[in-house]
């Protein structure tokens, strides 16, 4: 546990994130130009998509992959219902805001996943390449749950028809690039990837450092400006990732995934979206307050996951699999 924490806090990726938080709190004017931040996020999508695709091109799609996909989709769909209950009762949010926030916690954060993959790999618990596909599959279901919770079944949401909204979700730039690169990786395979690996693999960790620096800046600045978030909501933004993380990890071990992949599933459940879902909510639930959902997911849950929860989940996954006598 302690060792894990030390490993976490000497990883350059995490250190740059802390630097970003620090710089924002001392009100430095440090800022990554927006087009660069956007480009880095596209790069990360392309790189993990490619890597996942190449991995699956080698391993093939077997029962494990299918059950991991199924587990991810089910978890993504169901987790918001629990979150909604907590947000509405303990959090004292109204129906619309509860639904919107719940959608964020059921969906996933790509950057949290990527950071977890780095940390897990550093602990010799690299998740399977197919977890990238699981991640992609978990992006959307929670949006549906959130909308059902906020509006009831079958209602028209915002300015959009459901068809428009689904189109939006499946063609949004992150998903498009992630899945597209995944397919490119599957087709090109090991050999095709070899040619581009200096760009997509060697540079990956460095780009992740700078991207997390930027996320640290953005998260902390939003925190400083935050007004809409009560202490109750702050507590929920810590509580949900813990619970969801444990549930997800147990689910992963339960369906027979290895330690790293179980932990990755836990991290996916624990993470809260701050890219795809806010954009979708802004359109589908314009009455919901972005000040609430962005601050909770980006400024509280995201740092909590990166700095603490990933380590906890990893340790928990290791414990469960060793109890299980299972795969390391």
């Amino acid at each position, binding site marked *: 546990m302690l060792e894990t924490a030390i490993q976490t806090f000497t990883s350059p990726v995490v250190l740059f994130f802390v630097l970003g938080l620090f710089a924002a709190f001392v009100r430095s004017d440090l800022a990554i130009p*927006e087009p660069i931040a*956007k480009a880095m996020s596209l790069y990360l999508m392309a790189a993990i998509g490619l890597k996942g695709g190449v991995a699956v091109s080698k391993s093939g799609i077997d029962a494990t992959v299918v059950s991991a996909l199924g587990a991810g989709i089910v978890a993504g769909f169901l987790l918001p219902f629990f979150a909604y209950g907590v947000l509405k009762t303990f959090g004292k949010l109204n129906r619309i805001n509860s639904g919107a926030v719940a959608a964020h916690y059921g969906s996933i954060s790509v950057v949290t996943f990527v950071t977890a993959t780095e940390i897990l790999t550093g602990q010799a618990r690299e998740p399977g390449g197919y977890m990238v596909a699981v991640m992609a599959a978990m992006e959307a279901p929670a949006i549906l749950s959130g909308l059902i919770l906020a509006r009831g079944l079958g209602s028209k949401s915002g300015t959009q028809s459901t068809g428009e909204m689904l189109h939006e979700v499946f063609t949004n730039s992150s998903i498009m690039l992630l899945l597209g690169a995944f397919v490119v990786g599957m087709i090109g395979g090991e050999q095709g990837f070899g040619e581009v690996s200096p760009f997509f693999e060697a540079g990956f960790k460095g780009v992740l450092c700078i991207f997390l620096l930027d996320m640290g800046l*953005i998260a902390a600045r939003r925190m400083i400006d935050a007004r809409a978030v009560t202490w109750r909501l702050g507590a929920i933004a810590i509580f949900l990732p813990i619970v969801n993380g444990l549930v997800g990890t147990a689910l992963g071990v339960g369906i027979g995934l290895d330690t790293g992949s179980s932990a990755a599933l836990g991290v996916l459940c624990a993470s809260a979206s701050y890219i795809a879902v806010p954009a979708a909510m802004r359109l589908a639930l314009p009455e919901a307050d972005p000040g609430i959902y962005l601050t909770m997911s980006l400024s509280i849950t995201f740092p909590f996951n990166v700095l603490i929860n990933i380590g906890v989940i990893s340790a928990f996954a290791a414990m469960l699999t060793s109890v299980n006598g299972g795969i390391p």
Partner: protein
Amino acid sequence: MIETVTRKRIEILTDKALQKHVTDAIDRVGITGWTILPVDSGKGREGVWREESVMGTDKVFVLTIAAEDKAMALAEELAPMLTDFGFILSMWDVQVIRGERFS
């Protein structure tokens, strides 16, 4: 001296994700053109926003020049979105050359 005519200039601050809704409305009322300008950051009732392009919640300025009647029709068309999404719309008279382009 060169001849100028008076037209309305309308500027709408909107979410980038909703830009297409605005330009569709412009097309719908029969205005022939529009131009999009980038926006950095801002502050309103919902607080400060900035650097949000990573999160897809950034904004743009949509600017269009049109005859008064079409401009008012556009304002009418956009009024519900102004309320729902907190757009900002302002308009004023400008002189243009070759006014037939902005009928």
